[in-house]
């Protein structure tokens, strides 16, 4: 454990300087530690986490056991599945295009990155566990694929014991030519446990593709920030479902860069906000002069369940070339009154009708998960948060299994 007073500024970080993180230092010096006036954090109270002294969690590495999942406990790998190579690497690939100072801080504070190499098709579940309270976690994962493979990563997070901890985690994903990567994050946060600020970078080589799906539920603060750099004819889909209550601030800040020709990106956010929660969607798609033939779509929809709920939605396009198809949009409103009435006119209570419409709104993102097991798991997480228990039957989220239901009884 090492004490770290972030309030004292960048000087306290000198002790962490190595030959491997000099680039991170340079970029962090340029950007500075975030505070109240930092653009990327304007809707999130990052100052509360920066202006204090932390105990940095530095856990001793252990021998990695073979298991069904990749389990990372307090930043250390304890088990890993067959089929992927997991190691620690002091050497790392930084993407200096990232806009987030905490991306660089995370790199500086993590002595070595957890390096995941996929050389053939694989599906990996990563479980992150946090066990210590009132500490600062800082660790990073580097994911590299071989060309022309398919990789699916499903991330979940467990941290009931990590009360008031602050987690600086993130991955650097490098998809080689023709690789297809899907990363699914499912995280429910409860007030009083850890606060995550995850900062990722996705780099896509020519003709590769990545699907990033994030499912953020609960009533506690959290932010994900990511940058993505798209190579020639690559494709990037980012979809975010946010369902939060209480007084929390939660959401996504991103920058997708079309750096070469004929790349496609699609970013869609659906936000359901109850009580006095604040949702954040601050997203930029930048099309460089080299990005001819780009197609880019960006959309955010928010449903406010209460008068006190608030959505900070800022979809943005920055285009430096004519030969593109790009659109962006944002809607914020309440549940569709006509649809509510239609359901009620059939004897369904207002409360139940509202639940059905919210579930339907969420399903549009959840159903984008192709893997059935993961999709059901994410459904369950949503239902658990919404209903307090997972009680929805399969016909609520029907995937044409009705014939087997009839046959089964």
């Amino acid at each position, binding site marked *: 454990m090492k004490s770290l007073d972030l309030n004292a500024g960048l000087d306290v970080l000198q002790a962490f300087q190595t030959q491997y993180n000099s680039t991170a230092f340079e970029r962090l010096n340029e950007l500075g530690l975030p505070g109240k006036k930092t653009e990327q954090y304007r809707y999130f109270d990052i100052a509360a986490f920066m202006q204090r002294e932390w105990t940095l969690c530095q856990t001793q590495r252990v021998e990695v056991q073979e298991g069904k999942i990749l389990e990372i406990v307090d930043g250390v790998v304890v088990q890993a599945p067959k089929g992927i190579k997991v190691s620690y690497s002091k050497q790392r690939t930084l993407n200096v295009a990232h806009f987030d100072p905490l991306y660089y801080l995370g790199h500086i504070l993590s002595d070595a990155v957890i390096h995941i190499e996929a050389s053939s098709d694989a599906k990996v579940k990563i479980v992150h566990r946090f066990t210590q309270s009132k500490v600062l976690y800082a660790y990073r994962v580097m994911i590299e694929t071989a060309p022309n493979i398919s990789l699916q990563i499903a991330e979940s997070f467990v941290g009931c014991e990590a009360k008031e901890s602050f987690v600086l985690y993130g991955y650097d994903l490098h998809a080689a030519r023709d690789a297809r990567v899907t990363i699914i994050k499912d995280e429910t946060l409860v007030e009083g446990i850890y606060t995550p600020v995850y900062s990722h970078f996705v780099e896509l080589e020519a003709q590769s593709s990545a699907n990033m799906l994030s499912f953020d539920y609960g009533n506690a603060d959290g932010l994900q920030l990511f940058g993505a750099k798209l190579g020639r004819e690559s494709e990037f889909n980012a979809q975010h479902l946010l369902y939060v209550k209480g007084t929390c601030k939660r959401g996504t800040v991103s920058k997708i860069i079309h750096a070469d020709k004929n790349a496609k990106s699609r970013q869609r956010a659906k936000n359901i906000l109850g009580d006095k929660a604040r949702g954040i969607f601050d997203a930029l798609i930048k099309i460089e002069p080299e990005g001819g033939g780009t197609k880019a779509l960006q959309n955010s929809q928010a449903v406010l369940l209460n008068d006190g709920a608030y959505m900070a939605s800022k979809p943005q396009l920055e285009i430096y070339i004519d030969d593109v198809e790009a659109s962006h949009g944002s809607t914020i409103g309440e549940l569709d009154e006509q649809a509510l009435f239609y*359901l009620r006119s059939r004897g369904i209570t207002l409360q139940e009708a509202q639940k059905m419409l919210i579930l339907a709104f969420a399903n549009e993102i959840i159903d984008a998960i192709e893997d059935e097991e993961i999709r059901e798991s994410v459904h369950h997480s949503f239902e658990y948060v919404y209903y307090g228990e997972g009680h929805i039957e399969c016909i609520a989220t*029907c995937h044409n299994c009705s014939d087997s239901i009839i046959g089964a009884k």
Partner: protein
Amino acid sequence: MSNMIEIKDLDANIGDKNILKGLNLALEAGKVHVIMGPNGAGKSTLSKAIVGHYDISVNGGEILYKGENIIDEEPEIRALKGIFLSFQNPVEVPGVNNAYFLRTAVNAKRKFEGKEELNAAEFLREAKGLATELGMKPELITRSLNEGFSGGEKKRNETLQMLMLEPDFIILDEIDSGLDIDALRAVSEGINKIKDGKRTFLIITHYSRILDYVEPDFVHVLKDGKIIKTAGPELVAELEEKGYTALGES
């Protein structure tokens, strides 16, 4: 015979516009009633007022259903008590599974009536059987509610809901609009299927063509927010020949 519905001096607005102006109407139980009238007369407003639509503000009057004034009841309570409106333009609800929606509605009504709820298999067997009789494509049962349905498919889906929910009082708001001959016949057969001499029907229509398939007992003419004439089915032919204007002048 007693009245299923008795409307007394109903005065209602949509926004600032006064549409129903002291409307009086009694619908005898177990009969098929037709309301005809020119555009803007207040036909759809009347149907919305009966089911408690949020567009309608009632300024005065009573709607007695089985003798009980329902004017202050929530829409779902009116539905649970047996009032059903087949919408002129059924709303599309993306993401809400048609089967899930309908089973929730059916079980809400069964629970209200003190009956045992249907499990998924029982429900799907019954729904698919009725859907087949109505000529609905089976996949429409498991698709999102009305999403991407054609006009005819939406009306068939309304009819399926009606058959499953077994209401006592059924309002059919322009059920025949946008239907081809086959769809009109299928929907009409659905209506005739649950005509049992106890249920009461209120068919709102501009045209007489659905009345070739569903025989009315009474025809009411609604004009300028009031019922101006009530007669037997022979009135339909008179309206077809002379129009509403002549009737209003008589």
